[in-house]
């Protein structure tokens, strides 16, 4: 079954080093998002990247509604990948919801990761006023789900992009679009629901491993209040404010992102 997991989650391993660093993509994307940052670690680490089932070039036929309807199913992917690769004391870098997925896996098996690095993560996107500001209310999330429905073809296309060196290679991308079954929009929608209706606040206290919270300036998906909340509730956490704005510093500001991660790992 080990070959099964490697193929199922489209695991890519590069670099060499004694320690392993795992990059986990977030909602709405796949491992290609690490394209600028991950290679920076190949000289010193064994670099592992993967796609969650239902995203990217993973085996979409392995998708099960009852499993992946909640974050625990995605955390299970991480646990299964860790087992197949025999990970121990590795470093986990998670973007967006993957920050929480990594935390979930770490709570389950603390020996897997020695450090958790979260980029633009949030334990809960919905506001819980007056005490908790997540940034969104329920009508916003419903609005998002509606938008996804209207855009589903494009969304499904995105969930398994081909890295186009020449963006005008329209023919390749058409091929991929045709290969999608109509279940793809469902997967995307369920991942969205699992992500945006998540409430991981109570679990934060159970994380025992040290963590780095990379907080972008003006990230409307994971605003500053959320970063502060994470820092306050994750034991042994370090808050890393970034100059990068937006939600994808590893795409928009790969140098700053790499630098901050390196500095943290060295300390």
């Amino acid at each position, binding site marked *: 079954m080990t070959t099964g997991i490697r193929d199922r989650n489209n695991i890519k391993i590069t670099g060499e080093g004694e320690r392993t660093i795992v990059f986990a993509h*977030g*909602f*709405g*994307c796949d491992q*290609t*998002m690490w*394209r600028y940052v991950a290679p920076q670690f190949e000289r010193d680490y064994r670099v592992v990247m993967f796609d969650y089932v239902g995203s990217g070039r993973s085996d979409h036929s392995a998708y099960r509604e009852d499993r992946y309807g909640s974050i625990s199913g995605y955390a299970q992917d991480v646990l299964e990948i860790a087992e197949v690769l025999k990970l121990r004391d590795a470093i986990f870098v998670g973007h*967006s919801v993957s920050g929480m997925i990594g935390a979930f896996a770490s709570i389950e098996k603390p020996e897997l990761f020695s450090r958790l690095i979260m980029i633009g993560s949030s334990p809960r996107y919905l506001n819980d006023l007056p005490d908790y500001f997540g*940034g*969104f*209310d329920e009508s*916003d*999330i*419903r*609005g*998002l789900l*509606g*938008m*996804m*429905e*209207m*855009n589903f073809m*494009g*969304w499904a296309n*995105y969930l398994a*992009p081909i*890295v*186009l060196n020449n*963006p005008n290679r329209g023919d390749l*991308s058409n091929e991929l679009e045709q290969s999608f079954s109509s279940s793809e929009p469902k997967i995307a929608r369920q991942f969205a629901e699992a992500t*945006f209706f998540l409430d991981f606040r109570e679990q934060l206290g159970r994380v025992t491993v040290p963590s780095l919270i990379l907080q972008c300036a*003006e*990230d*409307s*998906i994971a605003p500053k209040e959320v970063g502060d909340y994470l820092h306050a509730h994750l034991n042994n956490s370090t808050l890393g404010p970034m100059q990068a*704005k*937006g*939600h*994808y510093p590893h*795409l*928009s500001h790969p140098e700053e992102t790499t630098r901050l991660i390196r500095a943290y790992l060295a300390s």
Partner: protein
Amino acid sequence: MDELLNGAPCGYLCLNGAGEIREMNRTMLRALGFEREELIGRHIETILTAANRIFYHTYFYPMLQLNGQVNEIYLGLKTKDGQEIPMLMSAARAERDGETVIDGFLLPMKQRIDHERDMLVAAKKLEELNRAKDEAHEALVRLHAELEEKQEKLVAVNHALEAQAYTDGLTGAWNRRHFETSLAASFATYERAGVPFSLLLLDIDFFKKVNDTYGHPIGDEVLRRLAKLLREQSRDNDIVARYGGEEFVVILANADRDAAVQAAERYRLAAERTDMGDLRITISVGAATAGWGDTAPTLIARADQALYRSKTDGRNRVTFAQDNVG
């Protein structure tokens, strides 16, 4: 901005790498109700609702970064007075003036959006209906399988009941009722097609003594073993039935006098030589062959008389009916 672009019948905007609005044509500004200076330099989030903001950040931005373009995505833009206009946008990354920019062209799609929404609703309904139909079908298939299974069980139970009705509980041989039915059938065949048949009445010698000496359980066992023996020694077409307490009857199909006597002797010898537990028994046999004018009672009576003769002549022997014409 080029006047053609500025006044073109579609919206045009240009974002810098950070998502801030670098340019917007007049058509677009008018559609949104803003003046140029109100939007230039502001982040595009300014004119996006929360849901659209999430979409922008989780889909639009990374797609553009990784693939260089997005095609035909639906985005809702906010006007100055808070209305949301659904728009269809295609955008591509470009290098201009030494920096990375994003050019986007937008068309309002109010009517199309409504149309697509209706189609989506209809598609969902259809999916639901199909699912319900499939479920109903599966239920039917299951019911059908259950029905077949029940029918099979019914037939089996029927057979069992039938067998029970015609079997002697103790010995497993046919019972008297079955014997009578079989006898009638044998007569019918004889009358119709002239197929001869014979009747044997077999009685265990001194059976009362066996019960008195060894007890009824042993007696029952003797009856069972004798029935088994008789069946083993019989052909498929013969009917071996329990006629009374210690009496058995055999209808020998397709048997004339000689065959009957041979068969009877075979039974007698086998009974004499076979262990019936810790004891041995002997049987007396009376044989008769169906003749012209015979009826069930007359045939049985003749076999019975022959049996009586066997008993009085000393038991453990075969007697053929004397007044037999065949």
